[in-house]
């Protein structure tokens, strides 16, 4: 996010590096919405997203002095957030498999409805949630974090062409999933 906002971010980050807690608060307020949204989409639940957000701001508080200005502050922040998310989510146990499903008619929501509800309540969110992790990451950074493709490439450490390719495949997969949902309905 080039411009005055970017300069303000850099000033705030320098103040954070100097131990200014008020600057940390200001920096957080400027990016909290997008950071939390991104982490919420990655984690899938509010509590985990809050924990990762706290990890992220702790990492920012401790390592602000290492920011060298080679990327924009938002890109740096999302890079930190993604690393913290990876650290916390990789240790998360995979969901318990179903055992002995009851062979009874159930008036409750089916698997699709449960998936949609778990993914944020919309069919699109459920479709994105079914994407492979590397595709989901690109979608979250582009559509939730609102980062330009070049910044997404920097956060993920991949070429811009690869970002475009992943985005293309992710969009195709989401479209196919939504079409399949409409057909089944």
């Amino acid at each position, binding site marked *: 996010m080039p411009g005055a906002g970017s300069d303000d971010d850099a000033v705030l980050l320098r103040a954070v590096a100097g131990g200014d*807690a008020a600057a*940390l*608060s200001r920096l*957080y*307020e400027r990016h*909290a*919405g997008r*950071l*939390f*949204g991104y982490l*919420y*989409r990655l984690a899938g639940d*509010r509590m985990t997203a*809050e924990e990762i*957000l*706290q990890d992220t*701001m*702790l990492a920012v*508080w*401790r*390592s602000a*002095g*290492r920011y060298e200005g080679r990327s924009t502050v938002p890109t740096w922040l999302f890079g930190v957030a993604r690393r913290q998310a990876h650290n916390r989510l990789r240790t998360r146990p995979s969901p318990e498999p179903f055992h002995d499903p009851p062979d009874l008619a159930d008036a409750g929501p089916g698997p699709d409805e449960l998936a949609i509800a778990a993914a*944020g*309540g*919309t069919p*699109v*969110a459920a479709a*994105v949630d079914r994407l492979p992790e590397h595709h989901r990451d690109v*979608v979250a950074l582009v*559509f*939730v974090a*609102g980062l330009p493709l070049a910044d997404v490439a920097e956060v993920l450490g991949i070429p811009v062409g690869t970002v475009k390719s992943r985005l293309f495949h992710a*969009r195709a997969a*989401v*479209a196919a999933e*939504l079409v399949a949902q409409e057909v089944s309905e």
Partner: protein
Amino acid sequence: MTDDSPERRLDELLAGYAADLPEPPDADRLVRAVLTRSALAGLPDERPAPGRRHLRYLAALLVAEARLFRVAVPVASALVMALGVVVVTLGTGTGTAAEVLTLIAPIVAAAGVAGAYRSRNEPFAELVDTTPTSPRVLLLVRLTLVLGYDLALALAASAVLAVTAADGDGAAGLDVLVASWLGPMALLSAVSLLAAVRFGPDVALGAAVAVWAVRVSAGTAVLGDGWLARLVLEVWTTSPAVLAASAVAGLLAVAVAGTPGPWGREPGTGRGATHPV
């Protein structure tokens, strides 16, 4: 004119993916939590570089080990060394400065080294065993303390005697004085350490005293001045061979430290063992 293409529709749907997100936590609450966690966890980024960290760790180990030494040991060492200096300074006719230092400095260091190896029957051994620092590192730290202290004492005594006895019959330069005790001190300390790690501090002290008694008697009528006396005197000098042999014996002692003794147990645990390990 509106664009109703599937791509456009998909973009709108994906934009909706970014909507309806929960509100982020309150800034004050989050920053307070971050600062608390940071204070509780310390500040790893402010830690010194690895080299400095190792030096600090080593310094902390030296201080911690120094606290475990009984004060009587260094005090006794200093008193014995001071006595030697006084004897030479007063010129009581018992020998030159070099001769006195040669007799005193090695046995003082060897006695300290004998006690540097900590057997498992010491009161705090069990507690020390729970620390992540290896027994060999602790032994090296204690040796550094003991030998460093005894070396400093011997150097101080040599310096004093080099100045005060300059005009006397036993006058000698500092280099001559240091050469008179350095080799014997290294060799006797190595022998003492080797005995300590295999047989315990009591046997080590006895062995050091016995070996040194042979050296002392080499200059007297007990051994006379035959080939045996000359051989003993030759062995207990400062030479590259003696220093090298001392280093090898010291390294061997550190290598076998912590391994079971000759009777399948740690040295010094002969009595009262209720649960052999």
